[in-house]
């Protein structure tokens, strides 16, 4: 799959600070672990803030919980931006 913002679906680590998207798909390798934390398709996700060193980033998941993910882990989550 070609991933870029124009195409609609892209990896979570490309989401800019403050932007909100919806989880489209989670790569199988990390699916179980991330689902435990509440990362499932259809959930809304916002890039909250990034640590001083640039990684990890804290994401606001479903408007209620704040979860820090490293870039390597965020790559496993595909998201798309939904226009309001």
């Amino acid at each position, binding site marked *: 799959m070609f991933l870029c913002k124009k195409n609609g679906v892209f990896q979570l680590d490309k989401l800019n600070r403050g932007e909100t998207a919806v989880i489209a798909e989670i790569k199988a390798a990390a699916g179980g672990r991330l689902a435990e934390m509440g990362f499932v398709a259809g959930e809304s996700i916002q890039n*909250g803030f990034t640590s001083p060193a640039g990684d990890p980033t804290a994401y606001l998941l*479903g408007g*209620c919980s704040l979860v820090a*993910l490293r870039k390597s882990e965020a790559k496993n989550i595909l998201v798309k931006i939904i226009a309001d």
Partner: protein
Amino acid sequence: MRLEIFKQKRTDAPRRLYLLGNPNVGKSTVFNAMTGLRQHTGNWSGKTVDAARGKYTYNDRKYELTDLPGTHSVNSGFSEESVAARSIALGDDAVTLILADASALKRGVALALEFLENNGGGAVLCVNFCDIAERRGIKINFKKLSEALGIPAIGITAKRRGDINCLKELIDKNYDKLSRKTEARESLSEPKELLRLADGISAECSDAPRKTANAACGLADRVLTSRVFGIPIMLMFFAGILWLTIEGANYPSELLSRLFAYIKPHMAAFVPNPLKGILVDGIYGTVTWIVAVMLPPMAIFFPLFTLLEDAGFLPRIAFNLDRCYARCGMSGKQCLTQCMGLGCNAVGVCGCRIMPDENQRTIAVITNSLIPCNGRFAILISLSAIFIGGMVPDRLAGLMPMLCVLALICLAFAVSWGASLFFSKTLFRGGESAFAMELPEYRRPEILKTLAVSLVTRTIKIVGRAILVSAPTGAVVWLLANTDVGGAPMLTRLSLLLDPAGRLIGVDGFILLAFILSLPANEITMPILIMGYTAAGAMADAGSLSNLSALLAQNGWTLLTAVNMMILTLFHWPCATTLITIYKETKSLKTLALSFLTPCVIGIALCLITKLLSKAVLLIV
């Protein structure tokens, strides 16, 4: 009649309750409020690592409440959560209290749905932090929620006594009905489906304002984790706490040592002569030194640190520093275990259970004792106060010891990263690089309560343990110091034996001997050392800091000795309690040996380096 006796027995057995909830929904707080126990609460996932049990009586009925560790899901394979899963399977005729956070109702509802699918019933949904949610304008319709889930639902604020009573009343009324469960559903829904269902229910039952989200990513997080201010602010917080500790401990410390010195002759009058030496000089001297010098800094530092912890600050530290841990092949969660280690390394080693990866957990266990626990912390504080503080002009005397201790702590963290890097590249390769950690919301800590609880439960307990260990050690060391072998006290003989080794690394035999004899508890290193120096075996008058300074100078202490003593305080072997805990946790002699040797090797290497450096400086000057 018989039936009645039978009935009596039935009601005598406590009704069993389980407490289940996602991390950070205030489980420990609710548990403590219900049972009156004081389990230490923490604002991060995995703080409660083992199931805790407590009892209470309501309406003349006994209840036994089991607090299960934080869980994200009922049927999962993580070690952090398996305790929860197991206990749930055991609890046939029990009622489970599912705790949720009012500001994140959806996740609580998802957990409740999952639980109900697995167990068919037998649960009460209890929504905590209603006060915070109210302030945010979230309104929850508990009647609707209860109908949608088919179990009773109640909203509480765990801090309020009345709310806890309402909860107990609800449980009391519904217990019999609830503990009879229906069969579990055979096919379980996908997590995706459950979440969608939970989303629907929570949206229907709560009336949330549109933009609650931004409250969580508020100003505090933007500043605390900002590129420019994040790390300096963390250091400043820490420096502030250290400064308060050092400045604040001075006065009570002086007062206590004067008091003990005043009591000493009065007490000595009551002790029969042959026992005077061992009881008054040996035991009384050691114990009062520990109380006078160790207690004040501990009683100030740890309550303050607990406040930061309760406010949700520690996970942000882990978040800010995660990059360093990533570089060392570790997870930022190691930072949390190290912060626990600042209190007590044995606790830190237990806390390593929150590390999901096996190899990383072993490394975290081995490197935990590189972080100074509070016993060693107090040594660092008093040494830097008398030695470093005495070397600078008076107006800097308050600031220098603080900077010195801060530098030593930074050194300890840097060394632990180095050691972690070494182990993750050599002996324990292949740690998981994935990292996901929840950042709990900031909560305003209950300042007075925290101070009181942490003073009473933690400080008194730790000092109590130190006294229990130090009293017999004081006696033994006194005996060693007063048994003549060939014209010299045994203690002096032993230290002479160790002296060449000590000189090699820039300290002396007495210092090495003090570290060896203080294996039972680090707190007693200084008293043993002092007893060794005052060769007669008695301590200089109950260890006031100025006396100590003179005593050390008399025994040839230089700046190098003080620096190397501090380095060895940071890095020698873990205390006996920690070693036992390491073995219990890992059941591996290899890990135990590595935990013992790693800090030794590092400490000796660093001492050699400082000695060479000081020689080089002397040559140049």
